[in-house]
């Protein structure tokens, strides 16, 4: 699959516009607030699409299609219960405190609500995590472009890093946000025709489910296992994910999803940049609408890929095998692009892949430079300097943030195990976070000591649980069971969900216990930070359908409908 002139021309148009947006915006960057928070001037729909796009890295796109092939339609749980309810909760209940407290970052909210040590813990783990995740995704992209197009690993990594660096250096968060909107439409524009052609080839939705029933029965599941979401969730053995409904709903739908969507600065930053409180609250709600339709764009291609592979002879498409003889699910989207797209559309498809990669990376970099500058540099290294000084620091942080990501990409390329271990560690650190925010925002009695000890206990509980349990069929070590194996889970996913549930519960209980033993802060200090002490929002929306509660209710109803339709 080698791009022709027309493909290069389309990629060229995209690169020119991405850099052009950064260049145009450079003259708006006068203060650190302009650079890190877009001067709080972004319209709701732009912030909403950026909110979605920042999370839509290449790994998300490639990985969701891979899961679609591996687990079928049930992968939509990562969207319909694993994202939508949390996004609605963020918009309706949590945004008033993030935006209203005038905190400039999520760790800074922790400083205002609790204390400096809780903020420091969150800021440092977040900063390290963003650099490494951006490195890991850069590594994944380098490998993919190498495999797909024969591009040199070094060239792909350095070129994409240079472009992202340039546009963030020029236009800061504003540039990242506006480019994320560009990237969002490119991703939709590049993948929608792929789904159309794939479905048409396989005989529509009906043809797809019919073929998927062969996939399911050949692996010993009920015929509808690959084309339904809930019907096999009664027991871990009756669905390909190997999880049961309670672990799924609590672990993914509650702990993991609320922990990510409601506390991760990478996404929350986009809403904080909105031009008003009303717009900030609408941001995640607007994002939820396309989010719930994304399974059809990124999961369905994986389902088409596996259905064609198992039942070949019709479309002539089949997934490649890995060196160990198993199917390479990660190649679902890239191989389908090459199979169905002629030159021209191929260029657009590749542009969509590049766009998803860059939006994910830019999301990480802009979140990193803000947390570094405000929560680490200003808080601990050099407080009280001029605003201009912090603006310069933000630009420097952008450069070394990207340099560190590139370094991380090379480490990932060399030592795959180190990256697996780091990702595991991040999972331990992230799992309890939502308990801290929930108690902080909705229980005025919770204290800084409680939050800090609670977070540490939650992380410890996650590590212990992982050390004591093992997914069936795995060896003790990185997969778990490195202390003593006391329990076997039917799958790795079930183990992940339960690790999160334990971490959350431990953090929740310990925060309450320690808070009750320590002195609470006076109530007047907590106004605007805690639900019961903050005056209700006055409705400022012009239309009834712009009200967060109504919009949120509508979004939830639509997500429920999708669950029922694809039960």
């Amino acid at each position: 699959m080698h791009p022709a002139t027309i493909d290069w021309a389309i990629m060229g148009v995209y690169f020119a516009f991405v850099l052009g947006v950064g260049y145009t915006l450079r003259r708006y960057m006068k203060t650190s607030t302009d650079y890190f928070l877009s001067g709080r001037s972004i319209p709701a729909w732009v912030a909403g699409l950026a909110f979605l796009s920042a999370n839509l890295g290449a790994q998300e796109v490639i990985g969701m299609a891979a899961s679609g092939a591996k687990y079928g339609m049930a992968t939509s749980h990562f969207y319909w219960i694993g994202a939508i309810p949390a996004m609605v909760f963020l918009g309706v209940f949590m945004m008033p405190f993030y935006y209203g407290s005038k905190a400039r970052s999520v760790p800074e909210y922790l400083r205002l609500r609790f204390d400096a040590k809780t903020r420091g813990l969150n800021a440092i783990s977040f900063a390290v995590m963003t650099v490494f995740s951006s490195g890991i995704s850069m590594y994944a992209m380098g490998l993919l472009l190498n495999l797909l197009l024969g591009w040199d690993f070094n060239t792909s990594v350095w070129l994409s890093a240079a472009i992202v660096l340039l546009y963030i250096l020029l236009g800061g968060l504003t540039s990242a946000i506006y480019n994320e909107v560009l990237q969002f439409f490119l991703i939709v524009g590049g993948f929608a025709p792929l789904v159309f052609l794939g479905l048409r080839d396989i005989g529509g939705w009906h043809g797809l489910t019919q073929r998927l029933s062969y996939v399911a029965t050949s692996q010993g599941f009920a015929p509808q296992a690959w084309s339904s979401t809930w019907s096999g969730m009664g027991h871990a053995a009756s669905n390909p994910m190997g999880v049961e409904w309670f672990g799924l709903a609590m672990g993914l739908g509650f702990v993991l999803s609320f922990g990510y969507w409601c506390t991760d600065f990478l996404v929350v930053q986009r809403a904080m940049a909105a031009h008003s409180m009303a717009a900030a609250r609408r941001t995640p709600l607007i994002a939820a609408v396309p989010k719930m339709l994304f399974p059809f764009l990124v999961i369905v291609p994986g389902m088409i890929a596996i259905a064609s592979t198992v039942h070949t002879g019709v479309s002539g498409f089949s997934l490649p095998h890995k060196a160990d003889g198993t199917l390479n699910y990660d190649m679902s989207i890239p191989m389908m692009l090459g199979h169905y797209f002629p030159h021209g559309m191929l260029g657009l498809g590749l542009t969509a892949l590049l766009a998803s990669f860059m939006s994910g990376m830019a999301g990480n970099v802009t979140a990193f430079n803000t947390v570094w500058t405000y929560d680490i540099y200003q808080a601990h290294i050099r407080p009280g300097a001029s605003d201009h000084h912090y603006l310069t620091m933000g630009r420097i942080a952008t450069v070394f943030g990207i340099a560190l990501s590139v370094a991380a990409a090379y480490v990932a390329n060399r030592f795959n195990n180190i990256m697996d271990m780091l990702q595991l560690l991040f999972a331990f650190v992230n799992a309890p976070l939502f308990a801290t925010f929930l108690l902080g925002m909705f229980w005025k009695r919770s204290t800084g000591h409680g939050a800090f000890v609670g977070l540490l206990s939650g992380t410890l509980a996650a590590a212990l649980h992982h050390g004591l349990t093992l997914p069936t069929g795995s060896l003790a070590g990185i997969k778990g069971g490195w202390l003593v194996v006391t329990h076997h889970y039917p799958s790795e996913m079930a183990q992940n969900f339960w690790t999160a549930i334990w971490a959350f519960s431990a953090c929740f209980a310990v925060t309450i216990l320690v808070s009750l033993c320590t002195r609470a802060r006076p109530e007047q200090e907590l106004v605007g930070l805690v639900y019961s002490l903050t005056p209700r929002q006055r409705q400022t929306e012009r239309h009834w359908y712009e009200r967060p509660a109504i919009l949120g209710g509508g979004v939830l109803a639509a997500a429920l409908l999708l669950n029922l339709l694809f039960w």
Partner: protein
Amino acid sequence: MGFDIRIPLGVMFALIGALLAGFGLSSDPAIYQRSLGININLWWGLTLLVFAAALLGLAWRARRRA
């Protein structure tokens, strides 16, 4: 802030749409065997042009009102 993302977005999709549709008109029909005999370049290029026109129309209307 006087920056409307719909303008660059619209211009970018107009360019990409024109490139695709133009290539769809001039390319050898044999290459569309892989896209099930559909001239996907032409059709998707035209779709993107319509999308671009809608974006630019909205931006133009907003600018006139301001």
